């Protein structure tokens, strides 16, 4: 389940935020900064870009929260803004110029590994490393679909593509992850992939 939907905030604070209360804005930030940052860093794999997405997201949240009607949970509303910001960075030429070296990806995986315990930490670090090796758009689709729970149609709309594109990216990403896991000895390699069964 997406961490955006696990975070909760008092509706009274949301009402105050909608009226422009600066303290309420800060409380919204405190409640959702971590999910926003994590969404951005999982998609972009770069702490600096993730930080900028987080900053831009909350500037927009504060600017537009007056128009938030409460039809969807606040977390889902903020998540959409954050996802759009992260995808916008992914599309930009700026992203290609500022994409960090593989070494930085590795250090990120090591940091996460150090934060966990035993085998779980090792597995998490390995999964981080494998996700980092996916093409950025493929990784974004996998994260938005499998973790954040967006539908293919929703992802397609955000990316300006078709639902088929999202489906094929998801499938391609999982195939690549499987190959990486097979190479790492995490899965058996006898699985045949075919369109018929």
């Amino acid at each position, binding site marked *: *389940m997406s961490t955006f939907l696990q975070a909760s905030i008092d509706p009274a604070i949301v009402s105050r935020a909608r009226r422009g209360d600066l303290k309420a804005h800060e409380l919204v930030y*405190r409640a959702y900064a971590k999910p926003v940052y*994590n969404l951005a860093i*999982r998609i972009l794999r770069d702490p600096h870009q993730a930080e900028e997405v987080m900053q831009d997201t909350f500037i927009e949240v504060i600017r537009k929260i007056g128009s938030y009607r409460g039809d969807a949970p606040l977390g889902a509303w903020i998540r959409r803004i954050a996802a759009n910001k992260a995808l916008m960075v992914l599309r930009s030429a700026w992203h290609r110029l500022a994409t960090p070296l593989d070494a930085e990806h590795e250090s990120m995986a090591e940091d996460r590994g150090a934060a*966990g315990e035993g085998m779980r930490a090792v597995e*998490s670090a390995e999964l981080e490393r494998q996700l980092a090796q996916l093409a950025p758009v493929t990784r974004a689709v996998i994260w938005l679909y499998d973790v954040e729970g967006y539908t293919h149609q929703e992802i397609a709309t955000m990316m300006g593509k078709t639902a088929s594109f999202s489906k094929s990216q998801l499938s391609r990403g999982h195939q690549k992850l499987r190959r990486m896991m097979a190479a790492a000895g995490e899965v058996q390699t006898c699985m045949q992939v*075919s369109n018929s*069964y």
Partner: protein
Amino acid sequence: MHASIEQLLELRDAQGQDGHTGDPELRAHVDGCGACRAELSRLDNLREAMRSLPEIEPPAGRWQAIAQAPSKSASSWRQPLAWGIAASLLVVVWLAGNLSGGDAIENRVAAPTGDVAPASVAVKRDNDLDALIDRSRRLGMLLQSLPGRPEVVRAGTDNTIASLENSLALVNYTLSQPDTALASGEARELWRSKVNLMDSLVKVRYTEASFASL
């Protein structure tokens, strides 16, 4: 034969929906096939593993920057300003198209989906020193034409711009030394570096200006 990953993903996602188990024929195959069952289970576990990845703490102290960012209400006086910036960007794009003789840098800068050719690819066509010098002059004009930098800048963008400008200053310094007798190959390499750095700088500045005008 086994089910494809795409089919297994559809089955996995159908399982999560109330009252749906996916394509019955596929379901029957997977139920009777150990390899497909194992693969389906792996896909399920992988999704859970991704959802369970340790959360990463965002950097501290960002709230002040967010709280101090100027409001950009679309209904305010800023809207004409945004249109003005957008118009000036269009002029820059037009100018670049005319200056660079069919190799419009901004067409590549503005390409949205990763089809941007690296600057070095463009430069390969301009191996001649005179062409590199001419290209550097055009890029210089282009940089002059870009709108000023926004009041609120992204830390990463700012670092990238500073780094490019520092590298460019170093190249310019080397090229400007009267006592430095450069072999033609060395001079070409320096001018090529200069053109690449300026091309990158245009891209970053253009993207920054595009973000600022949103």
